[in-house]
């Protein structure tokens, strides 16, 4: 009897301790988002922790010296430049497609910038917040040039390698169900293993976002032996992601991303930004923080876009450097061109 008495007392005590716990601090003791959480956390830490893929040349890739480069990496840098004034104040975390959302919602990273497709279910039920799209993509299919496969219908009874936890896994299933094609999915958790299995012939096809397939093809032993099928299975808007219920942090990531696009529209580049120092254009003056309080309203320095553009460049520069004309991939701007040039890149007004 006495034993149970102790147990009851202990339970009572714990429950009391539990019930009183309505304060909002998370495990790290960092203030939780009850107003301006993550932004203050990043400022206090003096460093941005950015979740990237790290294995896709052109988007986020670690070179021999351990330096991260790519379009996704530059978004991290832009946010760091805006918040902390230093584009290099970023700690990159390599996350695979199954870890990324848990790492983000658990507060392990401040934001994701890793080829994540914006979908309604991720926005609502998974509890994410999607910043503007930085790359409009579509799902493609990589096959061997001599395989004789010309379309998705030819995959009956054949194997397709996929990376798990991706929207591509679902799109592929949907497409094949529509076509009534019975294929064999070979699902890998690790993209490297998936491409390796495709390369040594386990699968006739490898599916992923087109940009990723192009980038990955360049790392295969004989890139010329592989071609992309002329199919686009889905829309894949890729962009940075933050968690729900922290709008001030979300606003920062959102408007820094828009700022890159707006800078290109204004024609401001890292080269010529000095010439805008005493601009007569009120729009540009506001954008660069010479007038108004657009930056300070967000909790950033008023000239945050100056820091971003001088250190990272505008969206066009970022694109060309990493995946566009100045890179080995030479991807067309296509739908990633500015709206004024027939593309989809459009920033709401900075005013």
């Amino acid at each position, binding site marked *: 009897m006495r034993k149970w008495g102790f147990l009851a007392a202990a339970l009572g005590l*714990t429950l009391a301790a539990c019930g009183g716990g309505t304060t909002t601090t998370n495990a790290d003791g960092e203030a939780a988002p009850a107003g301006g959480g993550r932004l203050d956390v990043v400022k206090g830490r003096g460093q941005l922790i950015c979740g990237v893929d790290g294995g896709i040349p052109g988007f986020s890739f670690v070179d021999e010296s351990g330096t991260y480069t790519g379009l996704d990496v530059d978004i991290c840098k832009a946010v760091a430049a805006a918040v902390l004034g230093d584009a290099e104040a970023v700690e990159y975390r390599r996350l695979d497609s199954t870890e990324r959302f848990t790492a983000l919602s658990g507060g392990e990273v401040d934001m994701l910038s890793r080829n994540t497709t914006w979908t309604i279910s991720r926005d609502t039920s*998974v*509890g994410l917040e999607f910043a503007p799209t930085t790359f409009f993509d579509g799902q493609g299919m990589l096959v061997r040039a001599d395989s004789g496969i010309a379309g998705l219908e030819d995959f009956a009874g054949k194997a397709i390698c996929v990376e*798990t936890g991706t929207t591509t896994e679902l799109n592929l299933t949907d497409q094949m169900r529509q076509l009534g094609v019975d294929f064999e999915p*070979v699902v890998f958790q690790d993209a490297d*293993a998936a491409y390796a299995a495709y390369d040594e012939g386990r699968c006739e096809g490898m599916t992923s976002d087109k940009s990723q397939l192009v980038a990955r093809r360049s790392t295969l032993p004989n890139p010329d032996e592989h071609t992309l099928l002329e199919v686009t299975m889905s829309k894949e808007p890729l962009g940075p992601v933050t968690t729900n219920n922290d709008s001030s942090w979300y606003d920062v990531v959102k408007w820094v991303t828009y700022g890159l696009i707006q800078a290109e529209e204004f024609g401001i580049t890292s080269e010529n930004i000095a010439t805008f120092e005493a601009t007569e254009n009120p729009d540009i003056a506001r954008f660069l923080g010479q007038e108004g309080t657009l930056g300070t309203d967000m909790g950033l320095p008023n000239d945050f876009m100056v820091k971003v553009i001088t250190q990272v460049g505008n969206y066009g520069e970022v694109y060309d450097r990493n995946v566009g004309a100045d890179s080995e991939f030479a991807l067309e701007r296509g739908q990633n061109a500015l709206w004024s040039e027939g593309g989809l890149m459009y920033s709401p007004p900075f005013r």
Partner: protein
Amino acid sequence: MAHDSGSRSFDLKAMLRDERFWKIAFQVITLLVVLLLLSFFLGNLNRNLIQQGRAFGFSFLRNPAGFSIGESLIQYRPNDPYWRALMVGLGNTLTLVVGGIVLTTLLGVVAGVASFSKNWLLQKLSRVYVGLVQNIPLLLQLFFWYFAIFGALPNPANQIGILGLAFLNNRGVYIPWASSALLAILGIAATVGAAIAALFLWRWRTKIRIETGVGGQAQSIALAVVALAWLAIITLGMNWTVPEGVEGGGVTGGLRLSREYVASLTALVFYTSAFVAEIVRAGIQSVSKGQWEAARTLGLNAGMVMRLVVFPQALRVIIPPMNSQYMNLTKNSSLAFAIAFPEIYSIATTTYNQTGRPVEVFVVMMATYLTLCLLITVVMNQFNRSVQFKER
């Protein structure tokens, strides 16, 4: 310890010196610490979930899964609910675990016994195998078997045929099999049933022969009948289909074991068997030398000494650690998802990724592996009881 209550008022010093007080106090403190930690973690989880505007619950398991699965024992379509997808994963895990336990036991015992062999090559091979395999991480071995061994098999167009009965290519292994799943289950049930009946008959026969010194013919005949019946069911009743190579590559008929399955099974079996071999070796060494000598004095040859005298005694030492090796194999089967085998952990990963519910999915996972491991323990404990010394 003086503790004459009643006569004096409460004595704090005496209580602190009392051993019984500290025994109880220590237990209470431990319990409190555990409960506090638990409440901290659960409270933290709860707050985080609330912050993200989500409630803990399992109703999402009824939503359609939407992804396809490469291989499955039960029927599965992409618009089936998540729970059914998880069942497919559980089925695949079970094929890996059951096949793994059977083969591990065989290989492990053979390798363990071989380490006592007088054959120099056999003995050294066993030692090298154990030393090599035990010291390489399982994940590496999985990749090795998947990419280096089974990946090196030719493509379907140049597949290897074995006596026209089986085929090997870089998609998998094709073996003869019953023409329908029902017949296959019948065949497996008949095999298990026949094995149990044979074991029972053999024990009965031994018992009669020990107790009366004669007889046992009836049991021998029954044994023969069981064997014949089993043979008849297996050869005639199964409607075997033999895999046939197709012109230009590929195979029809028979059973296809995917490369993912075969590689996972091989890696798990080779890895776990190395540990089992050591357990078997330790068990055999635990049998005193006198038993060997006594058995040899009776005129038994080396094989019979092992089979009749030493091994049955070694079992008492072998079975308890075997239990944990079987559990390790069960848990390690989750690593197979690294080489694309759709076992339950792989399906669970996809599920929590699509639904954004890692906590719930991991609760399901933990419950599943716990149940599997407990089942193994229950069976092994039964088996263990049956080989212990019977004190009469």
